[in-house]
């Protein structure tokens, strides 16, 4: 019994292994190194965005802005790196995301505005701002250093995946072993209790939103490595893609739960499902319905068991 309970902790990872074995048997293309590289490579951008989303969710903030922030960072990166090089572009993109994140955090905590609506308003406005910066066109990413970093690989393992793993370990360290990380869980679990214990909940939340936005921005910048350009539609499906990763990974919409390790597993699951749909030639429009259905199922599973006991 104890063994089973221990094993159930790793149910997501076991699902990944079983699913991979299934695809390995039934699809000849799955077992190739190229496919392996592709899966790991595609994990980085939206994996970072999902980490950001998770970071916000731990303190109970649903940062729906992340898709637009990814877009804004990518656009700023593209525009600045054209004339000042990719390091300056990277910093500018991250700074833009951080500024918007700080504004969002301050508005939903210190100014006591409805957090959901603030993120939705910014979701609309930030994308509009990014499109206005582009003036309707797209910006091509031609910086050779950036493209080289994005395509570096050690054997079949891309460099960016290693960076992702390091970020996961770092985020888990912050969440688990620092004073700030523990107070994040306290705020997400029950804000009033945390406040009476002497935690400055507004400060904790604002910092969480800023970190969340920065991670989303970094993810957005590296989406451009694959596309070769940044346009106004970048990251439009980020919420749909990342919410299931985060929730499958053990976070909850109400906050106070979740860690980076879990998000990594959720990210792997979603990428395997995408790979499955591509390898087994699921109709492209049906993929949208399936993605929506997965998100719906995740929401239902999360909320149904939480609200099982209460009547209304």
């Amino acid at each position, binding site marked *: 019994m104890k063994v089973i309970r221990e094993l159930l902790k790793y149910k997501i990872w076991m699902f990944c292994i079983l699913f991979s074995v299934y695809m390995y048997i039934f699809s000849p293309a799955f077992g190739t190194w190229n496919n392996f590289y592709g899966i790991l490579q595609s994990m980085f951008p939206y994996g970072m965005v999902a980490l950001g989303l998770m970071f916000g969710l731990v303190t109970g903030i*649903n940062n*729906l802005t992340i898709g637009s922030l990814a877009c804004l960072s990518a656009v700023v990166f593209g525009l600045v790196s054209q004339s000042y090089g990719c390091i300056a572009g990277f910093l500018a993109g991250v700074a833009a995301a951080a500024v918007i994140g700080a504004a969002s955090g301050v*508005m939903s905590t210190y*100014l*006591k*505005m*409805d957090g*959901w*609506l*603030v993120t*939705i*308003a*910014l979701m*609309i*406005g*930030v*994308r*509009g*701002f990014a*499109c*206005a910066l582009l*003036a*309707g066109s797209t910006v091509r990413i031609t910086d050779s250093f950036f493209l080289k970093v994005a395509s570096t690989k050690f054997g079949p393992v891309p460099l960016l995946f290693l960076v992702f793993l390091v970020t996961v370990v770092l985020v888990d360290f912050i969440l688990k072993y620092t004073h700030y990380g523990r107070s994040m869980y306290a705020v997400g679990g029950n804000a009033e209790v945390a406040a009476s214990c002497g935690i400055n909940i507004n400060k904790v939340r604002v910092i969480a939103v800023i970190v969340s936005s920065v991670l989303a921005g970094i993810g957005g910048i590296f989406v451009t490595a694959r596309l070769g350009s940044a346009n*106004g539609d970048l990251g439009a499906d980020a*919420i*749909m893609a990342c*919410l299931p990763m985060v929730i499958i990974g053990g976070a909850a*919409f109400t906050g106070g739960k979740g860690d980076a390790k879990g998000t990594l597993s959720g990210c792997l699951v979603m990428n395997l499902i995408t790979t499955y749909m591509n390898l087994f030639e699921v*109709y492209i*429009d*049906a*993929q*949208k*319905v*399936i*993605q*929506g*259905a997965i*998100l*719906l199922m995740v*929401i*239902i599973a999360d*909320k*149904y068991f939480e*609200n099982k006991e*209460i*009547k*209304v």
Partner: protein
Amino acid sequence: MQKNNVMIKKRFDVGWFAVNNFGLILIVLMVVFGSIFANNFLTIDNFRNLASQIVINGILTIGFSVVYIIDGFDLSQGNVLSACACVALTILNGTHNILWAFLAAAAIGIFFGFANGMIGKVIKSDGSDSYLITLAMSLVALGFAYIWTKGLNIQCDSEMTSYRNIARGNILGISNTAVILVVFLVIVHFVLRKTAIGRKLYYVGANKKAAFMGGINSHNYRMYAFMFSGFCAALAAIVMTARTGSANPMTGNNYETDAAIATIVGGNAPGDSKSGMLRALFGVLCLGLIRNIMNMMNVDANIQTVVKCIILLVALYALSVKKSWGGKD
């Protein structure tokens, strides 16, 4: 209670008035601003134009307000509109019968609303869950529209002039669609204010637990509101396809955000007894005026989006100030 009243009375000053009538003040400001800075703003043609511009957003906002009153949020409206538009035009081309087209669109819209509401009922959702449910449902509706049309543009049959005349004709110089909006608005206002089901929606929005204890099945009323919102999306789809004569899966893209902005800028709040169709109309007029004036001043569409976002944030700040001053009314 006594204390609360005294506090509200003391607060009756310019700030209190401004926060309570945010939408109205914005409309007045817009009209003044437009008549000074935009040429041809104060002409009858422009106002006629404005009346037909706001119709689609207006119909969507009616549904959105009803959902917002029960403390829900319907982000699926835009894509449901696309799905309804595609289905309506396909049925219209097949049967050459306007009634069937309308019924098919309404069925699709109500079905998606029903799905939203049913999931909310199963998981006993509160306000914030409906953001996520409807976000996921919008993806399903978009996928449905793509599968239905195979990604193609659907054209209305050229012989169906009677269908196109829904949008083209006018009554006493006011376009048909504006008349549809006003009639619909009055009906919904009547239902919300004077019938049992309308009043119960307010109770559910104010406190669904208390409403449940008082013998109202809160879950069902939340579901009705979402179904009504789906129906509004279908009606908007009919007006839209009648006007443009074509439909594709991106027809209703981002319309839900405009409806959300109009609802909130108008001053609606969940369970607020004063929120309703009048405030929705303020919000719609406000957004319509902003678009109208900025179009006349040749402002880029993306800048318009940023301006809308800023106005929404200011409206949210006004709401939070109002809350901190005590009471919802």
